[in-house]
């Protein structure tokens, strides 16, 4: 008695192949649709905005006249913001991930923390804005400064960085850790010499993706009351400032048509900013991967 009837299999083969082809077409169409939308979007933004991307655009502050409006304050503001968010979120995030993966023992509390960190990643950004408003802006009296906004954004992306770093750390094989412990290395020596070097490419990938999100995020900035029209550059961490998405959002909602074009130019600047950040990430990653 044989269970596989080869004649029946051959007879049904055609039908299976047709189904196979149908699904392939559907998935291809889905990809094509996404690409098409993206293409139209890019085309519109570039065609509208590129005319405004002049040297003056980078040298001027905001203005009521579209031709004189510039992105200087927002661009420099975003850079300042990143200078706070990047170190704060990466140090806290990687530190937490190391604690959870390497030091924390398996108990109810730590399991609870682990579980909820991933849940935190799904909390809407407005909520983080409210948190920042309550804690940093009001309770700690930092005002709507670079520091307050930076801390708020750090909180927002912290869960993503932690989860990414945890995965990268977990991917380091157990046997090299054992080799290190087996020679009398302490936990910290093992982490710094063995675990982190192997995990850094993965940690950085996650961190840069999270930072890109912080650059583009608007809602928390609105909630903590970051101004739009700023005619000076921040000179310390407690200065007021504005950021790229705030500026773009402000231009986009103005009635004059010309501001739509200014807005597109702003979006282009934001995208170039993100592109540069991602290139840096790829560069650092490749550099590290070559060594290990």
């Amino acid at each position: 008695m044989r269970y596989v009837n080869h004649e029946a299999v051959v007879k049904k083969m055609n039908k299976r192949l047709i189904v196979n082809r149908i699904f392939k077409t559907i998935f291809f169409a889905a990809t094509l649709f996404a690409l098409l939308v993206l293409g139209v979007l890019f085309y519109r933004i570039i065609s509208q905005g590129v005319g405004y991307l002049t040297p003056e655009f980078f040298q001027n502050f905001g203005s009521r006249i579209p031709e004189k409006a510039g992105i200087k304050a927002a661009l420099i503001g975003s850079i300042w913001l990143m200078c706070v968010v990047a170190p704060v979120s990466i140090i806290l995030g990687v530190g937490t991930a190391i604690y959870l993966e390497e030091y924390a023992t398996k108990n109810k509390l730590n399991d609870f923390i682990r579980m909820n960190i991933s849940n935190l990643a799904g909390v809407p950004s407005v909520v983080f804005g409210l948190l920042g408003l309550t804690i940093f802006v009001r309770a700690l009296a930092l005002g709507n400064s670079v520091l307050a906004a930076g801390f708020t954004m750090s909180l927002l992306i912290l869960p993503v960085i932690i989860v990414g770093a945890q995965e990268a750390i977990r991917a380091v094989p157990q046997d090299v850790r054992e080799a290190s412990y087996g020679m009398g290395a302490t936990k910290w020596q093992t982490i710094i010499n063995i675990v982190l070097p192997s995990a850094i490419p993965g940690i950085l990938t996650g961190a840069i993706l999270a930072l890109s999100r912080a650059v583009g995020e608007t809602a928390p900035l609105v909630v903590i009351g970051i101004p739009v029209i700023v005619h000076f550059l921040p000179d310390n961490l407690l200065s007021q400032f504005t950021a790229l998405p705030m500026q773009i959002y402000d231009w986009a909602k103005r009635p004059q048509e010309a501001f739509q074009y200014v807005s597109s130019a702003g979006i282009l600047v934001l995208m170039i900013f993100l592109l540069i950040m991602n290139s840096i990430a790829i560069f650092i990653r490749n550099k590290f991967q070559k060594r290990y």
Partner: protein
Amino acid sequence: MVQLLEKGSASKMETSSIVYDTQKLNLWYGNHHALKNIDLQIKENEVTAIIGPSGCGKSTYIKTLNRMVELVPTVKTSGEILYRERNIFDANYGVEELRTKVGMVFQKPNPFPKSIYDNIAYGPRIHGIRNKKVLDEIVEKSLRGAAIWDEVKDRLTTNAYSLSGGQQQRICIARCLAIEPDVILMDEPTSALDPISTLKVEELIQELKEDYSIIIVTHNMQQAARISDKTAFFLNGEVVEFDATDVIFSTPEDKRTEDYISGRFG
């Protein structure tokens, strides 16, 4: 009997030649009783082989000797293991100190994803040796000691992963020698190697015996017979028999030992 006599008439010479004295060791993984009342004395400058069927607790025992087994969070132990007359389970016995004296070679070659040089220099470095000249000497001495110097001396800066499995295992042995241990624990060090690499590692063990005490877990009876002075037969977490290797392999006292080494079960 033999052990009892020795222990009873322990002159100073004899006690100092015992490296590891395991007394009434019990170990549990959670509820699973993996080692039961182990008593075992391991002597200086001898090769002690541990044999027994899969799952009988060989790896668990050898990993207890340098307390690596504690990396498993559910592990509980009772009893004593005296290493050079000090109980390694003492609260104030640092594991790092113990593992500096007791090196370990694992079943699967596990070099670090670093250069050959950095692999060997890892141990000395974590113990605070920074001087480049000293490190160079340690690296050469260890690689020579592991009989792999000639094969790798021209490419010390290449990644250890680019070596063959057998070479990687000898790198791991060299890495272990670099901390100048007193005892070397080996958990099936040749099970992932081809016959020629196996032979090289076995010859190496013979040479290392001059300077180190070696405890080796193996599934390979011939290997145990070839390279060891003493053999312990483990079964279901217990030591069934422990004696000179030629006694175990020719005239074992216990029926179960005889059955196992003649391949009748296991």
